[in-house]
């Protein structure tokens, strides 16, 4: 299934896109989504362990199972203020 993934900050800059579509298998977790990002965009690999995932504007753990149509964002460590 395809999920739309929003990218921010350093990740946005690395990939060069604000939003990407990643093809993951049914029942894939956030952890597997991150691995998929690393395969598709090798430049991101060193940063994958730092990324937290948000679904529906809420932080979710690495074992969260993604659904088709989920509003997904990959969140680098935050540094507002």
């Amino acid at each position, binding site marked *: 299934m395809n999920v739309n993934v*929003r990218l*921010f*900050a*350093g*990740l*946005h*800059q*690395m990939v060069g896109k604000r939003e990407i579509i990643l093809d993951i298998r049914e029942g894939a977790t*956030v952890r597997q989504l991150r691995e998929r990002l690393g395969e598709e965009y090798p430049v991101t690999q*060193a*940063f*994958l*362990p*730092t*990324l*937290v*995932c*948000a679904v529906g*504007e*809420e*932080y*979710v*753990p*690495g074992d969260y199972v993604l659904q088709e149509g989920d509003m997904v*964002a990959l*969140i*680098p*460590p*935050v*540094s*507002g*203020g």
Partner: protein
Amino acid sequence: MMFEITAEPLDPGPLVAAVRRDESGAVALFYGVARNENLGRKVLWLEYDAYPEMAIKKMREVADEVRAKFPVTGVGILHRTGRLEIGETSLLVAVSSGHRKEAFEACHFAVDRIKQIVPVWKKEVFEGGEEWIEGHMPEAGAEGTGTGIAD
């Protein structure tokens, strides 16, 4: 209450007015300001990115936490995005309460929580390079310890 992510310069006046009640005896107002140095480097300017919808949601959560923890009469948060020159205001947090002690403490708590959970990011552009600053990994997710997103 007032919660905004905006590319426009931040104005404290409307924010203070939004958090003040007739029951308020104090309003604490925090400014986060773009500084000209970090880690011994001369910073030229800052750029902020945000996930605006989620940032607003998380600001509201911070305000809910503040209200649960302190006897406040109002909380408001504004965060700027885009390019900020040195001296410009990146963050405004206003907290009102009956008395000054609670206003100061609640405002301090709010700023700390904003830095932990609100999806906003700062890039420093300094002489000879630039770096997205890694602050906190928000809870409820991800393993790992962070490796630095310097380019």
